């Protein structure tokens, strides 16, 4: 064989304050002029900040914070909304530009994409990955008017952390691209706190701190068996690899969606079960419709409620086979919501329905031993109805037909 396989070339592209940038492009005279711009929620209402301009972040404003509170921290800020559609269009435009560089582009969220450039060394004249990253950054800006930061490395984890470091507002000397050369992953990771590692949430941090572990450096001296004993086999081994900069999660192109969710933050907390049920119906309908539009079916249905006190609770159920029609998805979601509501019946701020374990509707089907006997989840009637609804929406728009609550 020839020379050894070259190391993987992974990039993470992260749009800087994405919603703020889109809001400014949509409304150059209004939002475009406001330096202290907050996107999301309203001063009177009780939504949350989706994104804050870097200038406003200096006042302590963060995304996810209730807008009213953000305005107490930064009273001069201008609050605007931005349409979901404008953001999705911009996001798709960025993915389109990125796909000119490699077919393997995974949109991780609306403003974060992973690229796998492995095997493209020859295509780019064996230039350094950092040079390619800079060219991608310039091209995205030129073609979409969106400023992005790019992290480069040999895997997802390193690329993501590098992209964070590349953001100009975080590190004064940063210029939008940080590349971690192969072999330097562990040294790079050693400069982070454990809480910076994606997947280490507040609860896990608490457990880590009980063992005196706060930074990656604190944790490195502990061998794998020790970490596995403390945190369990899965989490211990996971942590052992992450703090050494190891991550073998592949970059999946966008055709392989993992989950699809629809949520709603209410203008006012909802405590009425019927009102929540109507919201759930709307969300289930939208999720089911989007699922079918992509030709998918989903096996797992999850309902999440954010209570008045910001506590998130979720319940989910995995069905024996994939489904895609409103009736089945709503019926399941309603049962899950009822369970959550009876466990803690306090007013809700947010409701979400998400569908996961997604596969193509036409993929191979596992046959069941008791298929005839079991109550089929979706009837032929459900499917025909869904097709008819889809046809009406294609012709007259997505609001043309809705179910009554």
């Amino acid at each position, binding site marked *: 064989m020839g020379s050894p396989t070259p190391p993987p070339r992974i990039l993470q592209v992260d749009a800087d304050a994405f919603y703020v940038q889109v809001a400014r492009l949509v409304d150059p005279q209004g939002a475009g002029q406001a330096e202290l711009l907050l996107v999301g929620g309203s001063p009177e209402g009780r939504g949350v900040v989706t994104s804050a301009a870097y200038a406003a972040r200096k006042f302590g404003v963060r995304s996810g914070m209730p807008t009213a509170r953000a305005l107490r921290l930064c009273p001069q800020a201008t609050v605007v909304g931005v349409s979901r559609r404008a953001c999705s269009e911009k996001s798709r435009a960025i993915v389109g530009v990125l796909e000119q560089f490699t077919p393997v582009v995974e949109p991780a969220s609306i403003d974060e994409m992973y690229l796998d450039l492995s095997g493209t060394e020859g295509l780019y004249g064996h230039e350094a990955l950092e040079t390619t990253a800079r060219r991608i950054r310039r091209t995205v800006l030129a073609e979409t008017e969106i400023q992005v930061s790019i992290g480069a490395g040999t895997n997802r984890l390193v690329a993501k952390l590098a992209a964070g470091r590349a953001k100009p507002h975080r590190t004064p000397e940063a210029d939008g691209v940080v590349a971690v050369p192969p072999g330097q992953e562990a040294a790079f990771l050693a400069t982070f706190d454990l809480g910076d590692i994606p997947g280490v949430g507040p609860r896990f941090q608490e457990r880590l701190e009980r063992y005196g572990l706060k930074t990656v450096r604190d944790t490195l001296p502990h061998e794998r068996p020790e970490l596995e004993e403390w945190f369990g086999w899965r989490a211990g081994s996971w942590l052992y690899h992450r703090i050494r900069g190891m991550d073998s999660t592949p970059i999946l192109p966008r*055709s392989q969606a993992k989950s699809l969710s629809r949520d709603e933050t209410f203008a006012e907390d909802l405590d009425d079960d019927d009102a929540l049920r109507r919201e759930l119906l709307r969300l289930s309908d939208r999720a089911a419709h989007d699922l079918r539009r992509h030709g998918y079916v989903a096996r797992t249905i999850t309902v999440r409620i954010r209570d008045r006190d910001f506590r998130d609770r979720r319940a989910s159920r995995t069905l024996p086979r994939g489904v895609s029609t409103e009736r089945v998805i709503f019926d399941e979601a309603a049962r899950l919501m009822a369970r959550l509501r009876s466990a803690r019946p306090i007013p809700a701020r947010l409701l979400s329905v998400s569908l996961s374990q997604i596969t193509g509707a036409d*993929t191979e*089907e596992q046959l069941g031993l008791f298929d005839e006997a079991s109550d089929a989840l979706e009837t032929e009637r459900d499917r025909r109805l869904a097709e008819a609804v889809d046809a009406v929406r294609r012709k007259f728009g997505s609001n043309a037909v809705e179910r009554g609550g």
Partner: protein
Amino acid sequence: MKFTITRERLHEALVAVAASVPTKTTLPVLANILIEAKADGVRISGTDLDIAVSTVVPAEVDGEGAVTVPAKKLLEIVRELPSAAIRLAASGEQRVDLECGRSRFRLLGIPREEFPNFPPVSFKESWSVSSGDLQKLIKHVSFASSTEESRPILNGVLWELRKDVMRMVATNGHRLARMDVPVAGSAQAADLIVPPKALDQVGRLFGPADEVEIAKSDNHLGFRTGSTVVFTRLIEGPYPNYDQVIPKENDRACTVEKDALASALRRVGVVASDQTHRVRLQFSGGTLKLSVSTPDLGEAQDEIAVTFDGDPLEIGFNANYLLEVLKYMPTGEVRLTFKAPERAATVEPVGWDDPAAYLCLVMPLRLVD
């Protein structure tokens, strides 16, 4: 309550009971174990409300009484103690003092009144089975039960007791395991649907030479040997008619080395879809061709020698289901039978030197191309 016990005995009892203590619970007392000291020894019990395990250990009891203490903490402490006598004493309802050599601990408990009562299962009308037979059934069948909540009845293992045979059946609706063990004239006839978690405890706690006493109440079952008892809730409802789905007309049969088939499945399975684990099997003459093709990932082919009787056949399976079934096959050679690409396949041991009869079913994946 006051008693002295050896570190080894206490540790053994705690390990036996700890598996029934839930790791997460909304009822705090369930994270505790109940310790009851009586003149004849100390009884230690734990429960997650679905199953309960209780065991009696010899100890020198100076004062009778009962208290509950955090199971995990007590087990961790005892694990770290040297091999010596442990003295345990309750001071009041809520505190337990433990001493061993120069180590001293005080644990905060919860009054025993809060600990749930055990299910009312009376062993007065019990019957007994050989633990060896029971373990054989559990080991070969329990794995096939469902872990999904979509059909709760399939989360259990069906245990059929008849005059001269005990049978267990488990299925998740996609694959099924069934085993019969002949027994000498049992008086009891019953159909019980038992959670596999309880069977795991039975398999773990009882030695193969024991006779296990079994007793049943309306919706609970108890298993008992000399000092240890396991209670479990029974799953209610009719178990699906499994007999109806066991194929009787499969006319194509393949005999193959179990390990050769399993390694080939694992090899090509590497590039199978993470969701369906689909492999395609093509039987023809003396050859089995295995192939996998996963969009966006890649392809694999392999070939092994088999003995195959019948018309050539192409059939798809979830590789994991086949591998799981093969793992529990007790012989080096196995026999697979088929009828058609969308009908159930059977897997059986070949030349098993055992009075038991074992059969597994696997439903195929429908191939779309």
